[in-house]
């Protein structure tokens, strides 16, 4: 098959046979075990070297704080999750759409693509101020920043993926009388899919960054807000607790995207 310009994303097929035998449940158990081990080591190190809580609190203290006042963390989690999801979904759809459009309309691409690049050179912080002016302190302001960080890699990779189509494959389908639309749905888009998922996985973490940074411009709920509050009140435990919740959100979201990839791009082994 044609060599794709970027590294191929999918899990290597040969991978670890033992891991595949474990199944998703086994993998989850393994992940939890590793996490527990890290927490245990962390706890031990803090106690052993007498590290002051100001620098690094013990994980048990952090977890206790989470359990004692879960409400703000759950609220923050849900709020930031919705911002991330809306930003990610709109950015992914827009990015794929623009990729398709640029692929079909070369003139448009030469006209608009440079603007896309310029837009990405603006630091997200500067852009965030504008977005708050436009949307106010709404959920959509945060989603807009997540969108801003998301759409560009998706556009670029969609375009790359579409252009990696084997011309001989295209000639074959054309010889069967395929229309441009049939070529798109039956050949070009599926060929681009692995490449698109590389960008989606990247975008999943970028969208979270966008949402959290967006919250710093002012809001009352959200993980970013909790981080700011923790910083101002020097509540180190709260900062760490928020960090853990953010990590949970980020990892979970990434895992969901990677899982979707494994299902949708099941042929990834070939190429």
């Amino acid at each position, binding site marked *: *098959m044609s060599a794709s310009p970027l590294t191929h994303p999918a899990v290597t097929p040969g991978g670890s046979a033992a891991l595949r035998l474990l199944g998703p449940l086994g993998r989850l158990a393994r992940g939890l075990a590793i996490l527990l081990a890290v927490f245990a080591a962390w706890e031990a190190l803090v106690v052993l070297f007498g590290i002051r809580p100001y620098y690094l609190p013990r994980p048990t203290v952090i977890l206790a704080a989470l359990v004692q006042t879960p409400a703000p963390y759950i609220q923050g989690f849900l709020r930031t999750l919705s911002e991330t999801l809306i930003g990610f979904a709109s950015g992914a759809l827009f990015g794929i759409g623009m990729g398709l459009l640029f692929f079909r309309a070369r003139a448009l691409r030469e006209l608009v693509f440079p603007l896309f690049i310029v837009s990405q050179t603006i630091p997200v912080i500067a852009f965030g101020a504008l977005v708050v002016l436009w949307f106010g302190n709404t959920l959509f302001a945060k989603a807009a920043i997540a969108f801003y960080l998301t759409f560009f890699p998706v556009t670029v990779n969609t375009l790359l993926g579409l252009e990696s189509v*084997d011309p*001989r*494959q295209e*000639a*074959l*389908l*054309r*010889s*069967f*009388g*395929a229309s441009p639309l*049939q070529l798109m749905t*039956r*050949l070009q888009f*599926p060929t681009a899919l692995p490449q698109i998922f590389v960008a989606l996985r990247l975008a999943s973490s970028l969208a979270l960054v966008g949402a959290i940074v967006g919250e710093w411009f002012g809001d009352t709920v959200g993980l970013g807000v909790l981080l700011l509050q923790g910083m101002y009140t020097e509540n180190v435990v709260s900062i760490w607790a928020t960090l853990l919740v953010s990590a949970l959100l980020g990892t979970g979201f990434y895992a969901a995207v990677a899982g979707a990839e494994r299902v949708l791009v*099941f*042929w990834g*082994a*070939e*190429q």
Partner: protein
Amino acid sequence: MTIGHSGLARLAAAPDAASASSAPAGPYLLEMKGLSKRFGSVTAVSGFDASIAPGEFVTVVGPSGCGKSTLFNIVAGLEEPDAGSILRFEGKGCHAHELLGKVSFMPQRDLLLPWRTVIDNAVIAMEIEGRSRKASRAEARDMLPEFGLAGFGDQYPHQLSGGMRQRVALMRTFMFKRELMLLDEPFGALDALTRTMMQRWLLDVWRQHKRTILFITHDVDEALFLGDRVIVMSARPGRVKLELKVDLPRPRSAELVTSPEFIRLKRIVLEAIEEEAMKSFLASGAAAPQTDAMPEVQP
């Protein structure tokens, strides 16, 4: 695979009247006259003349880079020949692009879509035509055994061997029911043993489905073994160097290739090819020769 040759003696597959060189404008399926194609400063094909009668199996051999693939791309409708070329299909003059969707084309590589099962790869041409998916799938399922793919209908291409992938590609070509089939070195990438099996199998399938086949190959044995007629192409720019009727009995079995008659024909073709291979070798200077015929050169 079904490679039985018992029964069925000498099916008159070859159109008897098609004495190639001197035939009048008969009821040909495809006629090419003065076919030429330039790419920039390179003339790939120049003044190519050939006609193919319905039901005929015509093989095309030639040194590498002789414009065989350009020729095929024109007949498949993918490339327009230069002005002055005459292309007639089913008795009517036409542009190459009008042949899109009218000719069943199989390129060198199997080009299976990795996200489609064997069945779904086989029916893609019918799907593009807008035929019902269900009906074409059922038809494909019935055809699996004939193509040696029984039980593999729901596998994905990466689960198949090279020979099987090639058979899926052939099945796809056969399922796109067009009178004329273009096969561009379909067995080129297979090992020698699989290759001879596939050749005999192709003859069986051809006999049963009654199609007209234009078959490109590098391999003189293959060209003679399969064809009713062999067209030897010249070095670039490609035109017809030699046209040879292969009057060997059908059905053809493996021993045929050692028969004196086969050897006689092979000598004629090899001589013609050697001359051309030499030309293209000299023309390409120190570049790698890649001519299959070279080692078998006879003085």
